[in-house]
């Protein structure tokens, strides 16, 4: 894309309109990939710490890598949906309890279907039911925000409460155990050392990356986040887009809930409760701006892994678990500071 045609200067005297300085683009690229640099730095730190303190390796131990990957699955599923929403300039606070609701629905549906049809089909029915039911609060969120012009923060905060109550009611106030050996295998089995959960999530993340970076839906999402007015004037159906956006993010949480039920062979309303803020943090660490218009799925993957490595790593090196909160908080702040500095440095407009 950066090719300069050599014939340009011959026919015209008009100077180049842009101030293309390759050094600046490199700095911008490093800043864009900062989440991966964070991740590499963290892993090196824990490796050194672990070797000094216990004489054992941290990252070369396959058990640790598997555990971190499984640890990152649920927050990452929420965070992929959240990435879309945050790029559009919104936020979805209801994802945590939509995930809980979906986990309960997955457990109930799998059990009910298991009585009538073979177990593998019952498992698929349970997952499908969880994702579809999760779409319902997504539709309501989308309609509230697009048609009734309720700010996303408030609309999804309301849905946070509704989904929470619905999930607890449906679960009867307790956890719902799943009687399905296939479902348990999905949640805990491995193929050549790679957990099924991680494989499903990897495929899902690649699909979401494709949607965000290669389709009109993704392109319009960026445009809406940067300038709603411009997007509307360009003929994009904003209401329809916002509706589909919140359904998409809710369905990500739905899949997260179904996989949670698989992993713990039980559905619990509080499944996603601690993960909501982690999902927002993962998106921000991954380089998205909360003002909308920027962010990538792969950035979010790095962000989710950063959080998982901090949480698992601190436990591994035997630090009191409360330090996790402090460490994740510091990473969020540093990440935003780097973003600000990079904007100032690259000369782009900072205030919108």
């Amino acid at each position: 894309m950066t090719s300069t045609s050599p014939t340009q200067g011959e026919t015209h005297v008009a100077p180049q309109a842009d101030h293309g300085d390759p050094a600046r683009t490199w700095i911008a690229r490093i800043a864009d990939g900062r989440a991966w640099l964070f991740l590499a730095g963290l892993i090196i730190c824990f490796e050194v710490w672990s070797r000094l303190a216990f004489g054992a390796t941290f990252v070369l131990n396959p058990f640790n890598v598997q555990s971190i990957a499984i640890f990152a699955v649920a927050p990452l599923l929420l965070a992929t949906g959240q990435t879309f929403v945050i790029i559009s300039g919104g936020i979805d606070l209801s994802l945590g309890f939509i995930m809980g609701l979906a986990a309960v629905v997955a457990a109930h549906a799998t059990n009910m279907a298991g009585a009538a049809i073979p177990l593998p089909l019952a498992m698929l029915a349970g997952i499908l039911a969880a994702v579809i039911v999760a779409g319902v609060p997504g539709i309501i969120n989308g309609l509230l925000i697009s048609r009734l012009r309720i700010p996303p923060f408030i609309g999804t905060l309301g849905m946070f409460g509704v989904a929470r109550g619905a999930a607890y009611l449906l679960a009867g106030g307790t956890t719902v155990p799943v009687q399905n050996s296939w479902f348990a295998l999905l949640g805990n089995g491995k193929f050549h050392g790679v957990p099924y959960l991680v494989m499903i999530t990897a495929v899902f993340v690649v699909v979401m990356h494709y949607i965000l970076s290669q389709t009109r839906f993704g392109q319009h999402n960026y445009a809406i986040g940067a300038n709603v007015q411009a997007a509307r004037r360009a003929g994009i159906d904003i209401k329809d887009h916002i509706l589909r956006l919140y359904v998409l993010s809710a369905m990500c949480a739905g899949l997260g809930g179904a996989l949670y039920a698989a992993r713990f062979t039980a559905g619990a309303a509080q499944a996603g409760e601690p993960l909501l803020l982690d999902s927002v943090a993962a998106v921000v660490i991954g380089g998205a701006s909360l003002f909308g218009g920027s962010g990538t799925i792969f950035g979010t993957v790095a962000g989710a892994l950063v959080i998982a490595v901090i949480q698992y790593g601190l436990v591994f090196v035997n630090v009191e678990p409360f330090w996790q909160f402090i460490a994740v908080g510091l990473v969020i702040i540093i990440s935003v500071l780097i973003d600000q500095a990079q904007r100032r440095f690259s000369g782009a407009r900072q205030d919108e």
Partner: protein
Amino acid sequence: MNSQEQTAPLLEVRNLSKHFGAVRALNDFSMVVRPGEVVALAGDNGAGKTTLIKAISGVFQPTGGEILLRGQLVSFSTPQEAREKGIETIYQDLALADNLSIGANIFLGREPMRKAFGFLPVLDRKAMAVAAKQTMGRLDFHVSRLDAPVSNFSGGQRQAVAIGRAVYWDAQILIMDEPTAALGVPEQRKVISLIHQLKAQGRGVIFISHNLQDIFAVSDRIVVLRRGVQAGERKISETNHDEVVKLMVGG
């Protein structure tokens, strides 16, 4: 300029009215725009300029009157319909998505797709970049970093991108609402020269400005609005600042 008067009008507005309840924002207004002609709309705040262009570009439904495009009666229920018929509006507050490239802005809402690996539909960024380069070249505006977001460019350059989008989609009528208002002086001159290029390409331009300097620099005719009615129409060559101001304030 005499030859222009014989050419068929590109756009003709006949007895157009727009009432908001009892408020007659626009009343019985008529004007024509011929190919290659720049018509300035002048008038004080609240004179009805914005109402007029919104009625032409499909944002408002007129209460009465007719709009003719190349002699054919048209009516638009949305701005998209107006745009499909070749009427493009360029706003002073730059209707661009700052985080996207020039190409992505030109194609916003109408992105070209290609098939990756023979089956997977993906955005054709290369086609967008090529079209962006060619289109901006036609406006004498040369960029090498076609993947850079438009936030890297200055106000006048961004205005050029907005005009480039209209040119790419082959707009025949460009309505420019205060295109120079937010710009510095050199940038204003750049936009004025862009308007000259549009004129040379045979497009019709409706140019709204408070700045009489700009109006006299670029327009062929000036239409003055006052309280929703046409207060006068002059050829730029046959009028001066004082007369236009008198028409505007009603002296």
